[in-house]
Protein backbone atom coordinates (compact mmCIF):
# COMPACT_ATOMS: atom_id res chain seq x y z
CA UNK A 1 0.00 0.00 0.00
CA UNK A 2 2.92 2.26 0.66
CA UNK A 3 3.49 2.58 -3.06
CA UNK A 4 -0.11 3.53 -3.81
CA UNK A 5 -0.91 5.70 -0.78
CA UNK A 6 -1.97 9.32 -1.16
CA UNK A 7 0.43 12.06 -0.19
CA UNK A 8 -1.14 15.06 1.48
CA UNK A 9 -0.10 18.32 3.07
CA UNK A 10 -2.05 19.03 6.22
CA UNK A 11 -2.26 22.51 7.71
CA UNK A 12 -3.25 21.74 11.27
CA UNK A 13 -4.06 24.13 14.11
CA UNK A 14 -1.61 23.43 16.96
CA UNK A 15 -2.24 24.97 20.35
CA UNK A 16 -0.54 23.71 23.52
CA UNK A 17 -3.31 24.78 25.87
CA UNK A 18 -6.24 27.18 26.39
CA UNK A 19 -3.90 30.14 27.03
CA UNK A 20 -1.49 29.44 24.15
CA UNK A 21 -1.88 31.60 21.03
CA UNK A 22 -1.66 28.64 18.66
CA UNK A 23 -0.79 28.53 14.97
CA UNK A 24 -1.24 26.53 11.80
CA UNK A 25 1.56 24.02 11.25
CA UNK A 26 2.26 22.17 7.98
CA UNK A 27 2.54 18.38 8.12
CA UNK A 28 3.27 16.20 5.12
CA UNK A 29 1.58 12.82 5.50
CA UNK A 30 2.16 9.73 3.35
CA UNK A 31 0.64 6.26 2.97
CA UNK A 32 -2.93 7.49 3.12
CA UNK A 33 -5.46 5.05 1.68
CA UNK A 34 -8.54 6.53 -0.06
CA UNK A 35 -10.61 4.06 1.99
CA UNK A 36 -9.49 5.45 5.32
CA UNK A 37 -11.80 7.66 7.29
CA UNK A 38 -10.52 11.17 7.98
CA UNK A 39 -9.86 10.21 11.60
CA UNK A 40 -7.87 7.13 10.55
CA UNK A 41 -5.79 9.42 8.36
CA UNK A 42 -5.06 11.53 11.47
CA UNK A 43 -4.16 8.31 13.32
CA UNK A 44 -1.61 7.60 10.54
CA UNK A 45 -0.22 11.12 10.88
CA UNK A 46 0.04 10.73 14.67
CA UNK A 47 1.87 7.39 14.28
CA UNK A 48 4.31 9.10 11.93
CA UNK A 49 4.74 11.99 14.40
CA UNK A 50 5.30 9.64 17.35
CA UNK A 51 7.90 7.70 15.32
CA UNK A 52 9.71 10.99 14.75
CA UNK A 53 9.50 11.83 18.45
CA UNK A 54 7.08 14.71 17.92
CA UNK A 55 3.92 15.55 19.87
CA UNK A 56 0.87 13.89 18.27
CA UNK A 57 -2.12 16.07 17.28
CA UNK A 58 -4.95 16.06 19.84
CA UNK A 59 -8.42 15.63 18.32
CA UNK A 60 -11.81 14.51 19.64
CA UNK A 61 -13.32 11.17 18.64
CA UNK A 62 -15.25 8.33 20.20
CA UNK A 63 -17.71 6.02 18.45
CA UNK A 64 -16.36 6.53 14.92
CA UNK A 65 -19.72 5.56 13.46
CA UNK A 66 -21.49 8.89 13.29
CA UNK A 67 -23.69 8.65 16.37
CA UNK A 68 -21.80 10.15 19.30
CA UNK A 69 -21.08 13.67 18.06
CA UNK A 70 -17.57 13.78 19.51
CA UNK A 71 -15.53 14.24 16.33
CA UNK A 72 -15.52 17.84 15.20
CA UNK A 73 -12.95 19.50 12.89
CA UNK A 74 -13.36 22.35 10.44
CA UNK A 75 -11.90 20.84 7.28
CA UNK A 76 -11.10 23.00 4.26
CA UNK A 77 -13.43 25.70 5.49
CA UNK A 78 -16.41 23.48 6.29
CA UNK A 79 -17.70 21.77 9.42
CA UNK A 80 -17.02 18.01 9.11
CA UNK A 81 -15.41 18.60 5.71
CA UNK A 82 -16.65 18.73 2.14
CA UNK A 83 -19.59 16.27 2.27
CA UNK A 84 -23.02 16.95 3.78
CA UNK A 85 -25.01 14.83 6.22
CA UNK A 86 -21.97 13.18 7.81
CA UNK A 87 -19.64 13.55 10.77
CA UNK A 88 -15.86 13.62 10.37
CA UNK A 89 -15.53 9.91 11.17
CA UNK A 90 -17.85 9.21 8.20
CA UNK A 91 -15.73 11.34 5.86
CA UNK A 92 -13.40 9.23 3.77
CA UNK A 93 -10.14 10.16 2.10
CA UNK A 94 -11.62 9.37 -1.31
CA UNK A 95 -13.26 12.79 -1.00
CA UNK A 96 -9.75 14.25 -1.49
CA UNK A 97 -7.12 13.94 -4.19
CA UNK A 98 -3.50 12.85 -4.03
CA UNK A 99 -1.33 15.93 -3.46
CA UNK A 100 -4.11 18.00 -1.82
CA UNK A 101 -3.49 20.56 0.91
CA UNK A 102 -6.07 20.25 3.67
CA UNK A 103 -6.78 22.86 6.35
CA UNK A 104 -7.81 21.33 9.68
CA UNK A 105 -9.02 23.72 12.36
CA UNK A 106 -10.97 23.39 15.62
CA UNK A 107 -14.56 24.68 16.00
CA UNK A 108 -14.25 28.42 16.46
CA UNK A 109 -16.60 30.11 18.92
CA UNK A 110 -16.32 32.22 22.05
CA UNK A 111 -18.49 29.58 23.76
CA UNK A 112 -16.27 26.69 22.57
CA UNK A 113 -12.77 27.52 23.90
CA UNK A 114 -9.89 25.43 22.57
CA UNK A 115 -8.51 22.98 25.15
CA UNK A 116 -5.65 21.67 23.02
CA UNK A 117 -4.94 21.56 19.28
CA UNK A 118 -8.24 20.52 17.65
CA UNK A 119 -10.09 19.72 20.88
CA UNK A 120 -12.65 22.28 22.08
CA UNK A 121 -14.70 22.49 25.26
CA UNK A 122 -18.34 21.97 24.32
CA UNK A 123 -19.65 21.88 27.90
CA UNK A 124 -21.68 25.02 27.10
CA UNK A 125 -24.10 22.60 25.40
CA UNK A 126 -24.27 20.49 28.58
CA UNK A 127 -25.15 23.55 30.63
CA UNK A 128 -27.92 24.47 28.17
CA UNK A 129 -29.37 20.95 28.56
CA UNK A 130 -29.05 21.24 32.35
CA UNK A 131 -31.06 24.47 32.18
CA UNK A 132 -34.15 22.62 30.94
CA UNK A 133 -33.53 19.99 28.28
CA UNK A 134 -35.18 17.21 30.25
CA UNK A 135 -38.48 16.03 31.70
CA UNK A 136 -38.49 16.04 35.49
CA UNK A 137 -41.98 14.58 35.95
CA UNK A 138 -42.35 10.84 36.36
CA UNK A 139 -43.81 9.57 33.10
CA UNK A 140 -44.46 6.14 34.60
CA UNK A 141 -44.14 2.73 33.01
CA UNK A 142 -45.03 2.09 29.37
CA UNK A 143 -48.81 2.22 28.91
CA UNK A 144 -51.11 1.08 26.22
CA UNK A 145 -50.16 3.06 23.14
CA UNK A 146 -53.64 4.46 22.71
CA UNK A 147 -53.80 5.98 26.22
CA UNK A 148 -51.88 9.01 25.06
CA UNK A 149 -52.64 9.77 21.44
CA UNK A 150 -49.80 11.49 19.58
CA UNK A 151 -50.21 12.77 16.04
CA UNK A 152 -47.91 10.83 13.68
CA UNK A 153 -46.70 14.13 12.20
CA UNK A 154 -45.66 15.39 15.66
CA UNK A 155 -44.05 12.09 16.61
CA UNK A 156 -42.00 12.15 13.40
CA UNK A 157 -40.97 15.79 13.90
CA UNK A 158 -39.99 15.08 17.53
CA UNK A 159 -37.95 12.08 16.41
CA UNK A 160 -36.22 14.12 13.69
CA UNK A 161 -35.30 16.77 16.26
CA UNK A 162 -34.07 14.08 18.64
CA UNK A 163 -31.56 13.00 15.98
CA UNK A 164 -29.34 15.91 17.12
CA UNK A 165 -26.08 14.52 18.52
CA UNK A 166 -24.87 17.84 19.93
CA UNK A 167 -21.68 17.86 17.86
CA UNK A 168 -21.63 21.66 17.51
CA UNK A 169 -21.28 21.78 13.71
CA UNK A 170 -24.16 24.30 13.65
CA UNK A 171 -22.22 26.67 15.91
CA UNK A 172 -18.96 26.07 14.05
CA UNK A 173 -20.43 26.81 10.64
CA UNK A 174 -22.67 29.73 11.61
CA UNK A 175 -21.05 33.05 10.81
CA UNK A 176 -22.46 34.29 14.13
CA UNK A 177 -21.46 31.18 16.13
CA UNK A 178 -25.12 30.84 17.07
CA UNK A 179 -26.40 27.72 18.85
CA UNK A 180 -30.01 28.15 17.73
CA UNK A 181 -30.20 24.90 15.73
CA UNK A 182 -28.96 22.84 18.68
CA UNK A 183 -31.23 24.56 21.21
CA UNK A 184 -34.21 24.43 18.85
CA UNK A 185 -33.76 20.68 18.35
CA UNK A 186 -33.54 20.06 22.09
CA UNK A 187 -36.59 22.25 22.77
CA UNK A 188 -38.57 20.74 19.88
CA UNK A 189 -38.04 17.06 20.70
CA UNK A 190 -39.80 17.64 24.01
CA UNK A 191 -42.22 20.43 23.11
CA UNK A 192 -43.85 18.28 20.42
CA UNK A 193 -44.81 15.46 22.78
CA UNK A 194 -47.45 15.51 25.53
CA UNK A 195 -44.99 14.62 28.33
CA UNK A 196 -42.80 17.54 27.32
CA UNK A 197 -45.60 20.12 27.20
CA UNK A 198 -45.92 20.23 30.99
CA UNK A 199 -42.61 22.05 31.46
CA UNK A 200 -42.43 23.57 27.96
CA UNK A 201 -42.78 27.20 29.03
CA UNK A 202 -40.08 27.14 31.70
CA UNK A 203 -37.85 24.97 29.53
CA UNK A 204 -37.68 27.31 26.58
CA UNK A 205 -37.16 30.42 28.72
CA UNK A 206 -34.36 28.81 30.73
CA UNK A 207 -32.58 27.17 27.81
CA UNK A 208 -32.58 30.35 25.72
CA UNK A 209 -31.34 32.32 28.72
CA UNK A 210 -28.49 29.85 29.24
CA UNK A 211 -27.69 29.93 25.50
CA UNK A 212 -27.27 33.71 25.71
CA UNK A 213 -25.22 33.50 28.93
CA UNK A 214 -22.78 31.11 27.25
CA UNK A 215 -21.92 33.77 24.65
CA UNK A 216 -23.27 32.18 21.48
CA UNK A 217 -24.10 34.66 18.71
CA UNK A 218 -27.55 35.70 17.52
CA UNK A 219 -29.21 33.83 14.66
CA UNK A 220 -29.57 35.78 11.40
CA UNK A 221 -31.21 32.99 9.37
CA UNK A 222 -28.33 32.29 7.01
CA UNK A 223 -29.36 28.63 7.05
CA UNK A 224 -25.75 27.38 7.06
CA UNK A 225 -26.40 25.24 10.18
CA UNK A 226 -29.08 23.19 8.44
CA UNK A 227 -26.78 22.53 5.47
CA UNK A 228 -23.84 21.38 7.61
CA UNK A 229 -25.79 19.46 10.28
CA UNK A 230 -24.75 15.78 10.04
CA UNK A 231 -28.24 14.75 11.15
CA UNK A 232 -30.22 17.07 8.86
CA UNK A 233 -31.92 19.01 11.69
CA UNK A 234 -34.35 21.38 9.96
CA UNK A 235 -34.63 25.16 10.25
CA UNK A 236 -38.30 24.50 11.03
CA UNK A 237 -37.06 23.74 14.54
CA UNK A 238 -35.61 27.25 14.87
CA UNK A 239 -38.95 28.74 13.75
CA UNK A 240 -40.63 26.55 16.40
CA UNK A 241 -38.14 27.72 19.03
CA UNK A 242 -38.95 31.34 18.13
CA UNK A 243 -42.68 30.59 18.48
CA UNK A 244 -42.23 28.67 21.73
CA UNK A 245 -40.08 31.43 23.18
CA UNK A 246 -42.41 34.25 22.15
CA UNK A 247 -45.52 32.58 23.50
CA UNK A 248 -43.74 31.62 26.73
CA UNK A 249 -42.28 35.12 27.19
CA UNK A 250 -45.68 36.75 26.58
CA UNK A 251 -47.81 34.29 28.57
CA UNK A 252 -45.50 33.38 31.43
CA UNK A 253 -46.74 34.60 34.80
CA UNK A 254 -43.28 34.47 36.31
Amino acid at each position, binding site marked *: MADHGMKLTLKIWRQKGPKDAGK*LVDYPVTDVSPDMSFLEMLDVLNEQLVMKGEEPVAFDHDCREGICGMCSLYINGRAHGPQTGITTCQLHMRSFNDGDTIYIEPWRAEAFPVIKDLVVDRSAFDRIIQAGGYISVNTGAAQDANCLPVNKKDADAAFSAAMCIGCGACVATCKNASAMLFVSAKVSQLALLPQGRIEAEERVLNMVQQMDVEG*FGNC*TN*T*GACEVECPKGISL*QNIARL*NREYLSAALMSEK
Partner: protein
Amino acid sequence: MSVSIVRKVAMALSGFFLLSFLLLHVSINLLSVCCPAAFDSASHFMGTFWLIQFVMQPVLAFGVVFHLVLGFILELKNRSSRPVKYAFSNAAASSTWMSRNMIITGVMVLLFLGLHFYDFWFPELNVKYMQGDMSGLVEGTDRFRYWEELHHKFQDPIRVGLYVLAFVFLGLHLMHGFQSAFQSVGFNHRRYTPIIKKLSNIYAIVVPLGFVIVAVYHFLAQ
Protein backbone atom coordinates in the same frame (compact mmCIF):
# COMPACT_ATOMS: atom_id res chain seq x y z
CA MET B 1 -34.06 43.43 24.31
CA SER B 2 -31.37 41.53 26.18
CA VAL B 3 -32.61 38.18 24.89
CA SER B 4 -31.28 37.07 21.49
CA ILE B 5 -34.68 35.88 20.20
CA VAL B 6 -36.38 39.14 21.22
CA ARG B 7 -33.78 41.11 19.24
CA LYS B 8 -34.32 38.83 16.28
CA VAL B 9 -38.09 39.29 16.36
CA ALA B 10 -37.74 43.07 16.79
CA MET B 11 -35.46 43.14 13.75
CA ALA B 12 -38.07 41.21 11.76
CA LEU B 13 -41.02 43.37 12.85
CA SER B 14 -39.22 46.63 12.02
CA GLY B 15 -38.22 44.99 8.74
CA PHE B 16 -41.87 44.16 7.92
CA PHE B 17 -42.81 47.76 8.61
CA LEU B 18 -40.06 49.07 6.31
CA LEU B 19 -41.10 46.57 3.61
CA SER B 20 -44.62 47.99 3.60
CA PHE B 21 -43.25 51.54 3.48
CA LEU B 22 -41.08 50.74 0.45
CA LEU B 23 -44.11 49.41 -1.40
CA LEU B 24 -45.97 52.68 -0.81
CA HIS B 25 -42.91 54.75 -1.77
CA VAL B 26 -42.29 52.95 -5.05
CA SER B 27 -45.97 53.07 -6.00
CA ILE B 28 -46.13 56.84 -5.65
CA ASN B 29 -42.77 57.28 -7.42
CA LEU B 30 -43.96 55.23 -10.38
CA LEU B 31 -46.86 57.67 -10.80
CA SER B 32 -44.24 60.24 -11.86
CA VAL B 33 -43.51 58.10 -14.92
CA CYS B 34 -47.05 57.50 -16.09
CA CYS B 35 -49.16 60.27 -14.61
CA PRO B 36 -47.39 63.48 -13.45
CA ALA B 37 -50.63 65.11 -12.25
CA ALA B 38 -51.45 62.14 -10.02
CA PHE B 39 -47.86 62.14 -8.76
CA ASP B 40 -48.17 65.81 -7.80
CA SER B 41 -51.47 65.27 -5.98
CA ALA B 42 -50.17 62.20 -4.15
CA SER B 43 -46.95 64.02 -3.18
CA HIS B 44 -48.89 67.02 -1.94
CA PHE B 45 -51.18 64.79 0.11
CA MET B 46 -48.25 62.84 1.63
CA GLY B 47 -46.36 66.05 2.32
CA THR B 48 -49.15 68.03 3.96
CA PHE B 49 -51.67 65.64 5.56
CA TRP B 50 -51.13 65.87 9.32
CA LEU B 51 -51.61 62.17 10.02
CA ILE B 52 -48.79 61.32 7.63
CA GLN B 53 -46.52 64.24 8.50
CA PHE B 54 -46.82 64.19 12.28
CA VAL B 55 -47.74 60.59 13.08
CA MET B 56 -46.52 58.28 10.31
CA GLN B 57 -43.33 60.19 9.50
CA PRO B 58 -41.99 60.09 13.08
CA VAL B 59 -43.01 56.41 13.31
CA LEU B 60 -41.11 55.75 10.09
CA ALA B 61 -38.05 57.66 11.31
CA PHE B 62 -38.14 55.65 14.52
CA GLY B 63 -38.50 52.41 12.52
CA VAL B 64 -35.47 53.21 10.36
CA VAL B 65 -33.27 54.24 13.29
CA PHE B 66 -34.43 51.25 15.36
CA HIS B 67 -33.69 48.81 12.51
CA LEU B 68 -30.22 50.19 11.84
CA VAL B 69 -29.16 50.57 15.48
CA LEU B 70 -30.32 47.01 16.22
CA GLY B 71 -28.50 45.86 13.07
CA PHE B 72 -25.23 47.29 14.36
CA ILE B 73 -25.79 45.83 17.84
CA LEU B 74 -26.39 42.39 16.31
CA GLU B 75 -23.29 42.69 14.13
CA LEU B 76 -21.08 43.64 17.09
CA LYS B 77 -22.50 40.85 19.25
CA ASN B 78 -22.06 38.30 16.49
CA ARG B 79 -18.50 39.35 15.75
CA SER B 80 -17.60 38.98 19.41
CA SER B 81 -19.07 35.48 19.43
CA ARG B 82 -16.16 34.29 17.28
CA PRO B 83 -13.06 36.15 18.46
CA VAL B 84 -10.64 33.86 16.59
CA LYS B 85 -11.59 33.56 12.92
CA TYR B 86 -11.04 30.53 10.73
CA ALA B 87 -7.87 30.62 8.66
CA PHE B 88 -9.81 29.06 5.80
CA SER B 89 -13.57 29.33 5.49
CA ASN B 90 -15.79 28.17 2.66
CA ALA B 91 -18.95 29.94 3.78
CA ALA B 92 -20.42 29.98 0.26
CA ALA B 93 -20.87 26.21 0.49
CA SER B 94 -23.67 26.54 3.00
CA SER B 95 -25.24 30.01 2.78
CA THR B 96 -25.94 32.82 0.33
CA TRP B 97 -23.80 35.95 0.03
CA MET B 98 -26.88 38.07 0.79
CA SER B 99 -27.58 36.30 4.07
CA ARG B 100 -23.99 36.71 5.28
CA ASN B 101 -23.54 40.34 4.28
CA MET B 102 -26.66 42.12 5.54
CA ILE B 103 -24.41 44.59 7.36
CA ILE B 104 -22.63 45.54 4.11
CA THR B 105 -25.81 45.91 2.05
CA GLY B 106 -27.47 47.64 5.03
CA VAL B 107 -24.65 50.17 5.40
CA MET B 108 -24.77 50.88 1.65
CA VAL B 109 -28.52 51.58 1.94
CA LEU B 110 -27.81 53.79 4.96
CA LEU B 111 -25.19 55.80 3.02
CA PHE B 112 -27.72 56.14 0.22
CA LEU B 113 -30.29 57.44 2.70
CA GLY B 114 -27.84 60.25 3.55
CA LEU B 115 -27.72 61.29 -0.12
CA HIS B 116 -31.46 60.79 -0.52
CA PHE B 117 -32.27 63.01 2.49
CA TYR B 118 -29.86 65.65 1.21
CA ASP B 119 -31.59 65.54 -2.18
CA PHE B 120 -35.23 65.49 -1.14
CA TRP B 121 -36.13 65.30 2.52
CA PHE B 122 -34.05 68.18 3.90
CA PRO B 123 -35.05 70.63 1.09
CA GLU B 124 -38.68 69.59 1.66
CA LEU B 125 -38.48 70.24 5.42
CA ASN B 126 -36.79 73.57 4.66
CA VAL B 127 -39.52 74.76 2.29
CA LYS B 128 -42.41 73.60 4.43
CA TYR B 129 -41.31 74.20 7.98
CA MET B 130 -38.46 76.76 7.81
CA GLN B 131 -39.90 78.98 5.06
CA GLY B 132 -43.48 78.07 5.95
CA ASP B 133 -44.58 77.49 2.37
CA MET B 134 -47.17 74.71 2.55
CA SER B 135 -48.73 75.50 -0.85
CA GLY B 136 -46.67 72.93 -2.78
CA LEU B 137 -46.60 75.31 -5.74
CA VAL B 138 -43.72 76.61 -7.86
CA GLU B 139 -43.15 80.14 -6.62
CA GLY B 140 -45.29 82.70 -8.45
CA THR B 141 -47.28 80.07 -10.38
CA ASP B 142 -50.22 77.78 -9.79
CA ARG B 143 -48.28 74.63 -10.81
CA PHE B 144 -47.27 71.97 -8.29
CA ARG B 145 -43.50 71.83 -7.78
CA TYR B 146 -43.06 68.11 -6.92
CA TRP B 147 -42.77 66.51 -10.38
CA GLU B 148 -40.54 69.34 -11.65
CA GLU B 149 -38.18 69.07 -8.66
CA LEU B 150 -37.91 65.32 -9.12
CA HIS B 151 -37.33 65.70 -12.84
CA HIS B 152 -34.56 68.28 -12.24
CA LYS B 153 -32.73 66.14 -9.70
CA PHE B 154 -32.18 63.35 -12.18
CA GLN B 155 -30.44 65.43 -14.84
CA ASP B 156 -27.14 64.54 -13.21
CA PRO B 157 -25.79 61.17 -14.51
CA ILE B 158 -23.64 60.70 -11.39
CA ARG B 159 -26.67 61.01 -9.14
CA VAL B 160 -28.63 58.57 -11.33
CA GLY B 161 -25.68 56.15 -11.22
CA LEU B 162 -25.44 56.36 -7.43
CA TYR B 163 -29.17 55.80 -7.07
CA VAL B 164 -29.12 52.76 -9.36
CA LEU B 165 -26.15 51.29 -7.47
CA ALA B 166 -27.89 51.86 -4.14
CA PHE B 167 -31.00 50.07 -5.40
CA VAL B 168 -28.88 47.05 -6.33
CA PHE B 169 -27.70 46.89 -2.71
CA LEU B 170 -31.27 47.44 -1.51
CA GLY B 171 -32.39 44.49 -3.65
CA LEU B 172 -29.67 42.24 -2.21
CA HIS B 173 -30.67 43.34 1.31
CA LEU B 174 -34.34 42.60 0.65
CA MET B 175 -33.64 39.24 -0.95
CA HIS B 176 -32.56 37.88 2.42
CA GLY B 177 -34.50 40.24 4.66
CA PHE B 178 -37.99 39.56 3.33
CA GLN B 179 -37.97 35.78 3.75
CA SER B 180 -35.79 35.87 6.86
CA ALA B 181 -38.32 38.04 8.71
CA PHE B 182 -40.94 35.29 8.41
CA GLN B 183 -38.58 32.70 9.91
CA SER B 184 -37.71 35.11 12.73
CA VAL B 185 -41.31 35.51 13.83
CA GLY B 186 -41.62 31.73 13.84
CA PHE B 187 -43.29 31.13 10.50
CA ASN B 188 -41.78 28.19 8.65
CA HIS B 189 -44.14 25.88 6.82
CA ARG B 190 -43.41 23.01 4.45
CA ARG B 191 -45.92 24.32 1.91
CA TYR B 192 -45.81 28.12 2.36
CA THR B 193 -42.12 28.81 3.04
CA PRO B 194 -41.02 27.95 -0.52
CA ILE B 195 -43.70 30.39 -1.77
CA ILE B 196 -42.47 33.08 0.64
CA LYS B 197 -38.92 32.58 -0.66
CA LYS B 198 -40.14 33.08 -4.23
CA LEU B 199 -42.14 36.15 -3.20
CA SER B 200 -39.03 37.44 -1.42
CA ASN B 201 -37.02 37.26 -4.64
CA ILE B 202 -39.82 38.86 -6.65
CA TYR B 203 -40.21 41.71 -4.13
CA ALA B 204 -36.42 42.21 -3.94
CA ILE B 205 -36.21 42.59 -7.73
CA VAL B 206 -39.47 44.39 -8.55
CA VAL B 207 -39.40 47.12 -5.88
CA PRO B 208 -35.78 48.30 -6.45
CA LEU B 209 -36.39 47.97 -10.20
CA GLY B 210 -39.36 50.33 -9.81
CA PHE B 211 -37.08 52.92 -8.20
CA VAL B 212 -34.46 52.38 -10.93
CA ILE B 213 -37.10 52.90 -13.63
CA VAL B 214 -38.10 56.23 -12.07
CA ALA B 215 -34.51 57.50 -11.87
CA VAL B 216 -33.56 56.36 -15.37
CA TYR B 217 -36.85 57.57 -16.91
CA HIS B 218 -36.34 61.11 -15.62
CA PHE B 219 -32.71 61.11 -16.74
CA LEU B 220 -33.62 60.01 -20.26
CA ALA B 221 -36.69 62.25 -20.51
CA GLN B 222 -34.71 65.48 -19.90
